[in-house]
C-alpha cells in the first residue's frame, strides 16, 4: 500500500576538508536505479539533529555502486536540487537564512530550533515536512537536521 518510487541521487564525489566552497561547480552525479519503497504518510515524525562524526578516513571511493541509468531523462547535467517528481523527499542542501525582521513567518509558526557553533537557527516544520533532511553548517562545521 502506498508504494512510492523515490529517485535516489548518489553523488560520486568526495568533499575533502571541512568547508564547502561557495559557488562550487556542481558535483558530478549519477543516478542510481530508482528505489521502490513503501512510504507511509509521515505524521509528526521524530525530531532529531545530529552532528557529523569524524569518520575514519576513507581513502578513496574506488567506484560507484553499480549504476544503471535506465531513464534517459536523468542527465548528469541536471542541477542537484530540483523539485521532486512524485512524492519523494528531496533534501535541502544549501539552505539560506534570514534575520528575524526579514522573516514572513507568524509567531505561531511551528519551528525546530538549534544552537550550533555559536549561532541559533530556526527551521519551520512545514519546510522540514517536505524535505525531512537539511544538510547545514555554520562556519564550516557541518550538522544534519532531520525530521
Amino acid at each position, binding site marked *: 500500500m502506498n508504494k512510492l518510487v523515490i529517485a535516489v541521487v548518489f553523488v560520486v564525489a568526495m568533499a575533502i576538508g571541512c568547508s564547502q566552497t561557495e559557488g562550487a561547480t556542481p558535483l558530478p552525479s549519477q543516478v542510481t536505479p530508482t528505489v521502490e519503497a513503501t512510504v507511509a504518510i509521515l505524521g509528526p515524525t521524530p525530531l532529531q539533529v545530529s552532528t557529523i562524526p569524524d569518520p575514519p578516513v*576513507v581513502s578513496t571511493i574506488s567506484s560507484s555502486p553499480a549504476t544503471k541509468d535506465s531513464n534517459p531523462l536523468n542527465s548528469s547535467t541536471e542541477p542537484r536540487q530540483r523539485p521532486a517528481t512524485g512524492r519523494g523527499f528531496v533534501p535541502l542542501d544549501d539552505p539560506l537564512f534570514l534575520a528575524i525582521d526579514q522573516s514572513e513567518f507568524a509567531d505561531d509558526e511551528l519551528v525546530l530550533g538549534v544552537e550550533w557553533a555559536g549561532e541559533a537557527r530556526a527551521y519551520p516544520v512545514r519546510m522540514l515536512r517536505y524535505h525531512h533532511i537539511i544538510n547545514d553548517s555554520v562556519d564550516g562545521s557541518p550538522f*544534519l537536521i532531520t525530521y
Partner: protein
Amino acid sequence: MLDGKRLTFETFGLLDDVFRMKDRETGTIWTHLDGKAIAGPLEGQRLTMIPLPQTTWGEWKTAYDDTLILSSETPFSDRYVRPVQIGVFNPREANYGDDRLPFNILVVGVEIGGVFKGYPLFDLALAGGVVNDAVGGMPIVVVYDQIARTGLAYLRQHDGQILEFYNASDDGYEIRDRETGLLWDIHGRKKAGSGEEVRLEFVPSFITEWYGWSAYHPESQLYLAE
C-alpha cells in the same frame, strides 16, 4: 571544524516505517531515529545528537534574539503550503512497535547510558510539565511546555549537586529548582542575571511517535503519571 570529510545525507527507504538515510559520500546507510550506521563503509559509527527543540517561532526568537530562520525562498517553495497537522495519522500505516500505547501517541523519547524511556506528552502535562527521574542510574529532568510544544531532557545536576525541578507557575510554565530557587528556561539555561552562562547538560531526547520509538527500542521503559 572536523578533520574528516563532511557527509551529506538523503532519505533512503524505510525501516519499521521510519525512514533511513544514506550519505552521498560513502553510501553508508544510517537510521533516522538514532543516527546509527547500519550498513556500508561507516557501519558501527554513530552521529552525535544535539538538541533540536520543537517550539513556536515567537517563543524561539524571544529565547534567541539573534537567531536566523530558514528562508522559504527555495526551488521548492510551492511545497510548503500544506499546514502542519500534528497528531493526524493513519494507524494502518504504522503497525510497528508494541501495544503499551497507541501507535501515534507522542512521547519524549530519552536515551541515557544505553537505557531508553518514553514519556508521553499527555503524562508530562499531567505532571505539571516537569518530571524528575532517574534513568540508567542518572538523574534527569524531562520538561514539556504545552504552550510552546517543547519537550526535552537534561541531566539534573550541576556543580556536583543534584537538583530537583518543579513548575513554579500555576497557570503557565516556569521551571525552578528547589535547591537554589532560581529560574531555568526550557533550553536548560539558568536565568541568573548576567555573566557566564550556566546550563544543564542535554540528554539525547526528542518528541517522537510511539510506533517508531518502541519498534527501535522494544526494551524502552515507559513513564506514566501517577
